[in-house]
């Protein structure tokens, strides 16, 4: 039971990061109807910016803010500079350009910073609290959970309760109609990309200190798992990303703990296959989401 509590709490923190990254994929999908395969490389670039600022100033928080800001700027720049120029209503060019961008960014980061893993120190201890003799969440896990929950709550408020969020949703669902209603659609798409990549950068920033360290591929596995989460939850569903993220995080943690780390990706793949067979649009998606 002690082991289960430990694995469960570790899985929650892992799931929160997964959910956050999956949410970033959902935001881009909703804004631009494209799966951004470059999200991990873009997030890694933003984490490098954070890393550089933290190294220069000694402040984790200055680095965190830099990471978020550079993620947002990079997202906006990629949308304005690349994605907007692609043919509309065809998914393939966006995917190909994103894959090309992955190569350029990762090669560029490797040239600029070197390919080796650079350790990033977490701002809080990773030693778990011991409650009743049972190790549970560490302070850093708790920080991760709170940060992820705060950002997801903030995004939910933005999209659900503000005029800007309403315009973001309108522009994503029906751009031509939105223009007639005065919505500045291109601006909303850019903003969607900025929000998404900043969110992805935060997820990567939260994850990297618990992994081997920062390198140009640091967020690749996060992307793979988060993409599975987004598909399981439904690419169009923020709530789906959250719930599937937590679910997959728990699954990975429990399978790793009770079976082996090597079995965890297989478990995720099995779950993904099952969902695609039973409910191809994702568990929480509306029926037309994948074809819209």
């Amino acid at each position: 039971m002690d082991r289960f509590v430990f694995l469960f709490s570790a899985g929650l923190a892992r799931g929160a990061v997964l959910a956050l990254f999956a949410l970033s994929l959902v935001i881009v999908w909703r804004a631009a109807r494209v799966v951004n395969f470059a999200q991990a490389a873009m997030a890694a670039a933003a984490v490098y910016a954070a890393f550089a600022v933290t190294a220069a100033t000694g402040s984790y928080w200055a680095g965190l803010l830099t990471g978020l800001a550079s993620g947002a700027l990079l997202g906006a720049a990629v949308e304005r500079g690349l994605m907007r120029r692609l043919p509309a209503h065809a998914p393939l060019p966006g995917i190909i350009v994103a894959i090309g961008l992955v190569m350029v960014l990762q090669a560029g980061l490797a040239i600029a910073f070197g390919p080796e893993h650079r350790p990033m120190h977490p701002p809080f201890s990773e030693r778990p609290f011991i409650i009743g003799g049972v190790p549970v969440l560490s302070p850093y896990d708790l920080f991760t959970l709170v940060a992820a929950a705060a950002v997801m709550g903030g995004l939910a408020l933005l999209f659900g309760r503000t005029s800007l969020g309403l315009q973001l949703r309108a522009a994503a669902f029906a751009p031509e109609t939105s223009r007639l209603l005065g919505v500045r659609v291109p601006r909303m798409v850019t903003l969607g990309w900025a929000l998404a990549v900043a969110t992805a950068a935060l997820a990567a920033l939260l994850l990297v200190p618990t992994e081997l360290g920062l390198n140009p591929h640091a967020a690749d596995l996060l992307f793979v798992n988060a993409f599975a989460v987004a598909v399981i939850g439904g690419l169009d569903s923020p709530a789906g990303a959250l719930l599937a993220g937590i679910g997959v995080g728990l699954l990975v943690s429990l399978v790793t703990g009770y079976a082996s780390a090597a079995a965890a990706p297989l478990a995720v793949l099995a779950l993904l296959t099952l969902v695609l067979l039973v409910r191809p649009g994702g568990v929480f998606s509306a029926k037309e989401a994948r074809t819209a």
Partner: protein
Amino acid sequence: MTTPPPTAPRLEVDGLEVAFGGLTALGGVSFEVRDGETVALIGPNGAGKTTVFNAVCGIVKPRKGNVRIGGRPAPARTTGLLAAGVARTLQGLGLFERMTVLENVLVPLSSLRAEDAAARARDRLAELGLLDLADRSAGTLPYPERKRVALARALAADPRLLLLDEPAGGLGAADIEALAETVRRVAGEGCAVLLVEHHVDFVMDVADRIVVLDFGEVIAAGSPEEVRRDPAVEAAYLGLEAVNAAAEPPQSGGAGHPPARGGAPRPSTADISVATEAHAHRSEPQGPAGEGGTA
């Protein structure tokens, strides 16, 4: 009908020409709509009615001619229409189906403070009898209610020029009467209304003037009575009228078929309605009309 004030027309369409590739969709269309006036564009499908709307909205670029709104050139970008006081409904409604009814009506009100926008949206919903449905998802409503949501959304930002694309299509008699009342009320408040419609009884009921298009040209314009008696309109529908006549022998001396010059029976409004529906095979670019279906 009251005489419009001697100011610039709310909408001036002057010599508008639109071509799609080698196909001329509009060949020099001119008309105007004044504040408080309701003008109907009628004609068979493919006549260019929706293309006129799309040109006014900046969705298609004219090859020649001008569109002026309130005495100024129409906004080059569709996004500028709202600020220019223009609202449009779409044939396909274009509702944001997964948003609530209230959210749909709030979208064009983003420039207002949140409380003001909510109050305005609720006023519009109340005016159209939709307040009880405010929190329902728009996609779950029956078609007549969905059409009213689209109308409420168009009216939300207090337009000075309202473009209605087939507002009566698919509605029953009671809903059409309610729609006619709404159009009269809006026009009575000084809004210029331009509508495209196949439902001729509705058009005859609400329009101050009618502009008849055929093959991208204005073939007649005037009061409903003038248009009904116009030989050019009659000629445009003559082929189909002959088909109708063959299917149903004309009643001699019937009120709906007074003798016309040349001895041919004149089409009644019902005949024109049948004729316009029968022309429905002619295609016409529809703009973003069908887009919102997946929203």
